[in-house]
C-alpha cells in the first residue's frame, strides 16, 4: 500500500518561508481535509506533496519512502494528480480533448491511444457526470462544469493520490456535494484524496482525517473532533462556533465573529 509523506518539509518562495517543517502522512483510503485560513499554506503543502514545488531539505517529501526529488516527473504524475484552484482552460479544446490530456504520463510520444487509455477517459468522464458535455468547447463552460472537467482530467490519470485545491470553491450547492461525494467514492475505492477547503461543514461530513494548518505550520492532525475544537477555531480562524445537530446526528457549525 502506497504512502505519501512529508517529513519536516519546508517550502520557501523568494525570501519567505511559507511552509515550516510540515509532517503529514497519507495512506490508502483516506479522505484528508486540509483546513486553515487564507494564506495559511494549504495550497503550498498540496504543491509540495505533488512534487510541484521543491521542499527543503531535499528528500523531505517521500512516496513509498523514496524522495520525490529522485523520481522522474512522469513517474510522479502517474501516481499523484493535482487539481489546481485555477480552472482556466486556454484555447478552444473540446471537453473530451481536455480529459484525454490526462493520459499524457501513460503514453509514449508516438504511441497511439490504447484501449486502456480510452477506458480510463470514458470512466473519468462518467464519474464526473460530464458525458453530455464531451463535444463542447471547454472554454464556453460554466465555472462548475469546468471544475468537473478538470477533475475528470486528473481522474483519467488513474492516480493513487489525488490532491485538490479548493475543488468546491466555484461550485453551486448541488455540484459541490457531487464533487465531495465523488471524493468519498474515490477514497472508498482505495485512492487517497486530499482536499484543501474552506468549507468546514463539508469537512465534518466527508473527511476521515483533518489537518489544520496556520501560518505555515501544521497545528494539528487527527479526527474532526480533535482538530476542530472550539479552542482551535477561536485561535486559528478567530471565530466562535455554535454546533447544532442535523437530521443524521451530524454536527453543523454556525460561525460567529469573536
Amino acid at each position, binding site marked *: 500500500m502506497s504512502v505519501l509523506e512529508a517529513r519536516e518539509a519546508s517550502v520557501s518562495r523568494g525570501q519567505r518561508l511559507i511552509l515550516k517543517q510540515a509532517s503529514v502522512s497519507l495512506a490508502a483510503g483516506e479522505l484528508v481535509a486540509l483546513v486553515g485560513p487564507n494564506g495559511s499554506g494549504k495550497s503550498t503543502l498540496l504543491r509540495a506533496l*505533488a512534487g*510541484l514545488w521543491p521542499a527543503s531539505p531535499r528528500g523531505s517529501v517521500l512516496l513509498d519512502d523514496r524522495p520525490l526529488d529522485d523520481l522522474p*516527473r*512522469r*513517474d*510522479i*504524475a*502517474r501516481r499523484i*494528480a*493535482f487539481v*489546481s484552484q*485555477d480552472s*482556466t*482552460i*486556454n*484555447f*478552444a*479544446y*473540446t471537453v473530451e*480533448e*481536455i480529459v484525454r*490530456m*490526462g493520459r*499524457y*504520463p501513460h*503514453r509514449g*510520444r508516438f504511441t497511439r491511444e490504447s484501449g486502456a487509455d480510452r477506458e480510463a477517459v470514458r470512466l473519468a468522464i462518467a464519474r464526473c457526470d460530464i458525458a453530455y458535455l464531451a463535444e463542447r*468547447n471547454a*472554454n*464556453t463552460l460554466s465555472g462548475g462544469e469546468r471544475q468537473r472537467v478538470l477533475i475528470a482530467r486528473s481522474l483519467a*490519470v488513474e492516480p493513487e493520490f489525488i490532491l485538490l485545491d479548493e475543488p468546491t470553491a466555484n461550485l453551486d450547492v448541488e455540484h459541490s456535494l457531487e464533487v465531495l461525494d465523488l471524493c468519498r467514492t474515490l477514497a472508498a475505492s482505495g485512492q487517497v484524496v486530499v482536499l484543501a477547503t474552506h468549507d468546514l461543514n463539508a469537512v465534518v461530513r466527508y473527511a476521515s482525517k483533518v489537518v489544520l494548518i496556520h501560518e505555515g505550520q501544521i497545528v494539528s492532525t487527527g479526527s474532526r473532533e480533535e482538530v476542530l475544537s472550539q479552542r482551535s477555531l477561536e485561535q486559528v480562524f478567530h471565530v466562535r462556533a455554535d454546533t447544532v445537530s442535523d437530521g443524521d446526528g451530524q454536527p453543523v457549525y454556525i460561525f460567529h465573529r469573536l
Partner: protein
Amino acid sequence: MKRRIPLFYALLVPILFVSAVVAMAVGSTSLGWETVLRVVGGKFLPSGWVDATRVTQADQVIVWLIRIPRVLVAACVGAGLASSGVIMQALFRNPLAEPSLVGAGAGAVLGGVISFVAGWSVTSVISLPIAAMTGALLALALVYAMATRGGVTPVTTLLLSGVAAGSLLSAVSSLLLSVNIVNWQMAQDIVFWMMGGLDARTWTHFWLCAPFVLLGLVAAMIQARDLDLLQQGEETAASFGVDVESAKRMLTLTTAVLTGASVAVAGLVGFVGLVVPHAVRLVLGPSNRTLLPASAVAGAAFLILCDLAARTIHQPTEIRLGIVTALLGGPVFIALLIRRYRDVTVG
C-alpha cells in the same frame, strides 16, 4: 473538429499543388502549365514518359533553375514560419503570439545585416543565410539567459526579454544601416532584404533552408503533446508529467531554428506566423498534433501565393514579399481580432 481534417487536406493539397504550378508558369516570361509539368516530369519520371523534345533549353532553365527553387523556398519559408507561430502561440498561451517574440527574428536580421556590412554576402551566397541562422540562435541564447533565474524561465519574463532584445537588436541593425547609407548599393540590398523577398533564390537557398525547416517540424511534432499541456499552463503541464523547463528550452530552440532558417533565405516576412496558425486553429481546433502539420501546409500555400502576387502585381518590378504578406495578412488578422472580440470564446 476532427472530422474536418480530411476535408481540410482535400482542399488544401490541391491548392498547394495548383498554386505551385501556376507560380512556376507565370512570370516575366509566361510558360504554359504543360511546359512546367514537362520539365518537372522530365526530371523525375523515367525517360520516355515525357515528350522532352517539346521543352526548349530556355524553358528548362527558367523552370528548373529559377522558378522551381523560388517556389520551393517559398513553401519552406511559409511552412517554417507558420509552424514556428504555432509553437509560440501555444507556449505563450496567446493566439496572437508570433515567431519573432523570442527575438530570433531580430537576431537573424542582425546576422544578415552584419554579413552585408562585412562584405561576406558578396563573396559567398551561403554567408548570408549562415549569418542569419547564427544570429537567430545567439539572440535566443541571449534572451534565455536574461529571462532565467535559478534554472527557471517564466514565460512572462521570456516574453518581456524577447521583446526587449528584439527592439535592441533591430536598433543595432538600423544603426548599421544608417552608418552605411553612403554605400548606396549595399544599403539598398539591406533594406530590400529586411523587407523580405524571394528574388534570385537558387537551389542552394533551398538546401540551406529545407533541412532546418524539416528538422524543426519533426522536433515540433515530437513535442506536440507537451505543447498541448503547456497551453494549459506550466503548473498543469508539470502536474501531468511534462518536464516544463526542458520542454520550454527545446521548444524555443525549435522556433529559433524554424524562424532563423526562414529569415535566412527570405529576409523578414511578417504575419505568416501569426495569421496562418490562427486561421487554421479556427478550422481544425487547437490540438497541436493536428495544427502543426496543417499550418505548415497552409503556410506553404499562403507564401507561394503571396510571392506570386509580389512578382506579378506590379511588373516588371517586384513588390517586396514582406509587404505583400502584411497587406494580405493584416486585414485577415484584423478580421480575426474583431471576430474574437465579438465572440465570447477565446481563440
